[in-house]
């Protein structure tokens, strides 16, 4: 769609930047007149996607200046679409929701529910991952209905 407005952010894969992304994306969502509850859903979803990349994509490397996460938010007339992409080790998507994944997540004091939250809180999601190349999480929320 030609009239879509897009914003791109690139952050180091470091936990202190998740709050920055959350703030930026909530600014975009506020501009689109989502309700407070919808904005909270979007904030949690974008945080979960970035956290997933930080905790899993680059777990064997400490070089945060090389380990990047790209976030692209696009405002369409009917939705806000957000793409979170890392360039890390990738993972087997089939593991999502399994006991094995929950156990691995608990080792990092997680719940294993981060991407499940994204699915629950957004209207549409699409996950893709290629071993050795990285993971892309695409999510969208329908635009608020205007009177």
């Amino acid at each position, binding site marked *: 769609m030609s009239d879509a407005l897009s914003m791109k952010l690139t952050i180091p894969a470091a936990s202190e930047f*998740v709050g920055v992304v959350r703030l930026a994306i909530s600014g975009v969502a506020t501009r689109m007149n989502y309700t407070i509850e919808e904005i909270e859903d979007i904030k949690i979803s974008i945080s979960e996607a970035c956290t997933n990349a930080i905790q899993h994509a680059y777990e064997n490397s400490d070089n945060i200046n090389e380990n990047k996460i790209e976030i692209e938010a696009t405002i369409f007339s009917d939705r806000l679409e957000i793409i979170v992409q890392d360039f890390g080790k990738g993972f087997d998507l089939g593991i999502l929701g399994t006991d094995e994944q929950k156990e691995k997540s608990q080792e*990092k*004091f997680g*719940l294993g529910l981060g991407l499940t939250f994204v699915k629950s*809180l957004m209207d549409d999601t699409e996950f893709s991952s290629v071993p050795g190349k990285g993971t892309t999480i695409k999510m969208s929320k329908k635009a608020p209905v205007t009177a």
Partner: protein
Amino acid sequence: MVMGFSVEIEQKEQVPIVHISGEIDVYTCPELRSKLVEIIDTGKKNLILDLENIQYIDSTGLGTIAYTARTLEENSGNVMVVCTRHQIKKIFQVSGLEKKNIKLFDNETAALKELT
């Protein structure tokens, strides 16, 4: 980058009450986890988490609470969570955590009453 995160602990009727302010995410969780582990190490059976002044929590925060609850459960203990914000309650419901030894209350008095 996250402003104003703090964890304060007080004791009421022998029960530790953990007052948390700010945003609980992957950045602030290690500090919260460290404070909760300190309490667990003192041998307390139960604790109250006051989330009334938090603006945000995600699965990393819930994971830390779940870890605390699992540890306290070994001694038949509980984590009592005080929170009234709809969005915070919603994330607890979506996670299914409320079904375990994690109980939600509208205020500190109600949580303490349950324990004493």
